[in-house]
């Protein structure tokens, strides 16, 4: 009798386990939901959130879980096999390094957008960025200028290069404060703690900041092109779902959203 019960329990467990793990729809009655975890650069926060909502509508059996942070930090974690399926970096170099390390396959590498930087101030600020451009940074009233950390944030490197190219770096050097990533940099200026900042256009155009400030788009020739790219990690749990997300992001739907958030596209 007892063996009979345990055998039944065991069978049931196998059945439940089998259902949960099943990848072929023929075996399970309800469609299984597969999760795709995404490591994404902080400048994608709003654009990618919007894309994911649309993606999940057209792919009801895929659930996307994004985590936003600095690309360098993600790189360090991913090279130690952090359990993410796909990586959207703010700098194509990081996914390329992962490929070189053997953590991602060459054919999964993709370019999805080209970032732009802007000089941003709050609406209340007396600084006239629209007509003064980069010269607004050297106005006497400016005490603190926020940029992302050039040591590891791609947007910080772009900001530093642009300040040098526009001939103001020497004058502003002592007034720079460094954000850990581009989103924190935006928060420094948005909170009023810094007077002016160089942030991503995608953040300046995001709902959270759009109504709160004014900006001047830094000319593209002032800094090296911010090629944003990514790759699918070798340990992705559901490669099919992950690849459908990748295709969606670089496809027409993705391009439309990225353009709306002020990104240029790889072909531009």
């Amino acid at each position, binding site marked *: 009798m007892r063996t009979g019960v345990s055998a039944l329990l065991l069978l049931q467990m196998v059945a439940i386990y089998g259902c949960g793990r099943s990848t072929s729809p023929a075996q399970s009655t309800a469609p299984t939901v597969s999760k795709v975890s995404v490591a994404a650069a902080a400048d994608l926060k709003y654009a990618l959130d919007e894309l994911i909502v649309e993606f999940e509508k057209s792919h009801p059996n895929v659930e996307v879980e994004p985590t936003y942070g*600095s690309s*360098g*930090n993600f*790189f*360090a974690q991913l090279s130690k096999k952090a359990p993410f399926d796909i990586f959207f970096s703010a700098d194509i170099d990081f996914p390329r390094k992962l490929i070189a390390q053997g953590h991602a396959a060459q054919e999964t590498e993709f370019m999805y957008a080209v970032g732009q930087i802007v000089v941003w101030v709050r609406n209340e600020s007396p600084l006239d960025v629209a007509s003064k451009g980069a010269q607004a940074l050297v106005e006497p009233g400016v*005490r*603190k200028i*926020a940029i992302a*950390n050039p*040591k*590891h944030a791609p947007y910080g490197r772009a900001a530093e290069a642009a300040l040098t190219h526009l001939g103001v770096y020497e004058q502003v050097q002592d007034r*720079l*404060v*460094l*954000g*850990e990533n581009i989103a924190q940099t935006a928060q*420094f200026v948005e*909170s*009023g*703690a*810094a007077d002016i900042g160089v942030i991503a256009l995608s953040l300046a155009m995001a709902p959270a900041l759009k109504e709160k400030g004014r900006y001047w788009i830094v000319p593209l020739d002032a800094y090296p092109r911010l090629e944003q790219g990514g790759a699918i990690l070798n340990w992705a749990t559901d490669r099919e779902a992950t690849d459908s997300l990748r295709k969606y992001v670089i496809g027409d739907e993705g391009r439309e959203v990225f353009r709306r958030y002020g990104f240029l596209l790889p072909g531009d």
Partner: protein
Amino acid sequence: MDFTAIWLTLKLASATTLILALIGLPLAYWLAMSSWRGKFLVESVVALPLVLPPTVLGFYVLMATGPNSAFGSLYERVTGSLLPFSFPGILLGSILYNLPFAVRPFMAAFAGMNRRLIEASWCLGESRWRTFWRVTMPLCWPGVLTGLVLTFAHTVGEFGVVLMVGGNIPGVTRTISISIYDDVQALNYASAGQTALGLVIFSLVVLCLAHVLGRRRLPL
């Protein structure tokens, strides 16, 4: 190894410890001796940083000290400079953050001592001030030292608050933990490892020293 960051961190930790000794000892003494009914409120506020994530505390400090806040604009009018992204700014953050690490051990020490000894000293004609230094402090020294060491060590390892209000300026707000984090992010693992090892050795030495000194009597 980032020596500027090490020097800055030691400066921040020493200043925090000194200021918290000045504020924390009277506060803890009052909390231990007072029989006021509303005391629990003060105790809870003091303990709050134990529960709050440092990033939350840092966010509040940034909001409260920015030029758009009442406190921030007052500070700006008085000193002519801004609190965020400055040494006084991270000092303020770390004083708030370390309040319970100083006050709670002090308080436990004061509350645990025999009050009759204080009263005996008063009856023998010693002033309250001299009684505090000649009777209370020597008896409570291990607890006070624990509070001071905890505060110092905790400031050395502080990260979240400084990350939120510091702005990562070399020599001003780039402390050792921020410097290690930067190195890791910039993939300079060797440099991060060196600084981290230095930090581990330093912390171990400080803690050993504290344990040895804690067994002795106050050198007064």
